[in-house]
């Protein structure tokens, strides 16, 4: 399983309720279901992925987070997970506010646009970056709103969102992000993992 998923799973307490937004083929959900909590549900936009989740015995709703999160009641889940999907939304700000409303804690991961390889691509090659966490070309990327770790931290600070845990992931190595190493982590990390609350 992806290191990112292990970190997310480790952040969740046993037997708590979880909503995985954009749960994909259900890999993370299945791990959580089998090891941490049975009270997990998913929201997924792709019909094929919903079928895969059903095959795994997972409860998933086919839907679009930007339209369908509003139907979930406030504080209805202990955790809401959003794994590497934020950048693909038309209105990420609205999605984050829905996550904070629905979940007591939200776990958001983002591919870091501040990662040095990304910067290197643009700075020296002069082309839009293509990396492990950003595998698409400019013309077929689903990503609409890319941000860096620093952007996300600033976003939370500006909105007084309680960002109580920030982790960085590079080559499967995890480290903490704090205000002293933020610039450095923003340069050296492929992925940011954030636990946020209202």
């Amino acid at each position, binding site marked *: 399983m992806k290191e990112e998923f292990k970190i997310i799973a480790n952040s969740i307490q046993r037997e708590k309720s979880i909503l995985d937004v954009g749960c994909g083929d259900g890999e993370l959900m299945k791990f959580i279901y089998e090891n941490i909590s049975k009270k997990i549900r998913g929201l997924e936009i792709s*019909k094929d992925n919903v*079928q895969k989740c059903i095959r795994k*015995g997972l409860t*998933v*709703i*086919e839907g679009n987070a930007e339209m369908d999160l509003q139907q979930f009641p406030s504080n209805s889940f202990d955790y809401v997970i959003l794994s590497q999907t934020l950048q693909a939304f038309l209105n990420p700000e609205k999605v984050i506010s829905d996550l904070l409303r629905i979940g007591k804690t939200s776990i958001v991961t983002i591919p870091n646009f501040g990662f040095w390889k990304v910067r290197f691509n643009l700075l020296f090659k002069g082309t839009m970056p293509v990396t492990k966490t950003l595998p698409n070309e400019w013309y077929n990327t689903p990503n609409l709103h890319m941000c860096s770790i620093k952007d996300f931290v600033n976003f939370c600070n500006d909105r007084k969102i309680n960002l109580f845990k920030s982790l960085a992931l590079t080559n499967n190595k995890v480290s903490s992000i704090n205000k002293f190493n933020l610039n450095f982590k923003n340069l050296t990390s492929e992925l940011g993992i954030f636990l946020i609350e209202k």
Partner: protein
Amino acid sequence: MNEFEDIKKIIIKKPLKLDCGVTIVDYPLAYETYGELNQDKDNAIMVFHALTGDQFASGKNPVTNKDGWWSYVIGPNKALDTNKYFIICANVIGGCMGSYGPSSIDKKTGKKIGINFPVITINDMVNAQFNLLDHFNIDKLFCVTGGSMGGMQVLQFIANYPNKSKIAIPIACSASHSAQNIAFNELGRQAIMADENWKNGNYELENKSPAKGLSVARMAAHITYLSKKGLQEKFGRKLQERDKIKFGFDADFQIESYLRYQGSIFVDRFDANSYLYITRAMDYFDLSKNSKSDLSEVFKNTRTKFFIISFTSDWLYPTAENREIVIALNAINADVGFLEVKSDKGHDSFLLDVPDFLNALKNFVDNSYKK
């Protein structure tokens, strides 16, 4: 109509007060079963049929000699696997396949009840069928499922008996019959009642049959079960056994001939008054009452796990209406899954060989049984 002597039936002794105020008692409920009930009695699935269905969901229907209406779904190793599950399907009250309905004989007069049959609702149908749990001594079903009007019965079942089924799978249905659907049903009823042989509902007494009216009702309804794309691909403007149009009102086009045929075979197996009563029950179905929060309220006591399925080309019970149920269940944090299956086959998709549907249904049912 024959008298259905060989079909399975229970006589329900427990009085049932119908929504219209009339109480019925000692009435027959015809049913069929598939598979075996296990020792723990935890493998029972109740299947509810749609408007013109009956209890013969699988295998050969002994009355019509055709395959059961859900033959793609029910059988050994199929989505509802008869090697694993015990499947019960009853003919709804108001129906015409042996359950208490307008074509039943009134004991007092010795004649068919006809239009003196009380107006029934989906709620009444479900309450009548609930008696089958007692009959089989089943405390809790594993699953309730059905499509279209069958799906409405699933919703009503859970609303009435919140914890009498582990899982519920309403398919291609709605929690509240739409104006458009009421309109189509009214069209069908008017076609029947406009037939001079309907005789104000007493056609049986005069040995008549409003076959033309019922046939037109079926033709109109049949169109609503298909999609525009499906019709176009299957029939287009193809001509029926001729090279040129004939400048008349014969069935020049294959679609005309097809609809006429569908209408004509329907009248052999279905009672016109049953059609009136059952469509009326559908029209009266409204779990939402005034608002979405009312629909949530209906389900607030349930711990049943739901899986709702709709079809992309179903314009009779479109995805948006199925999604209303999902939204209402989400609002009370119920355990609910949802899938919209891609299919060009319209509302009828749930009756047909649509692999994405059959696979999803099987996977959900089998995985839910394991747990």
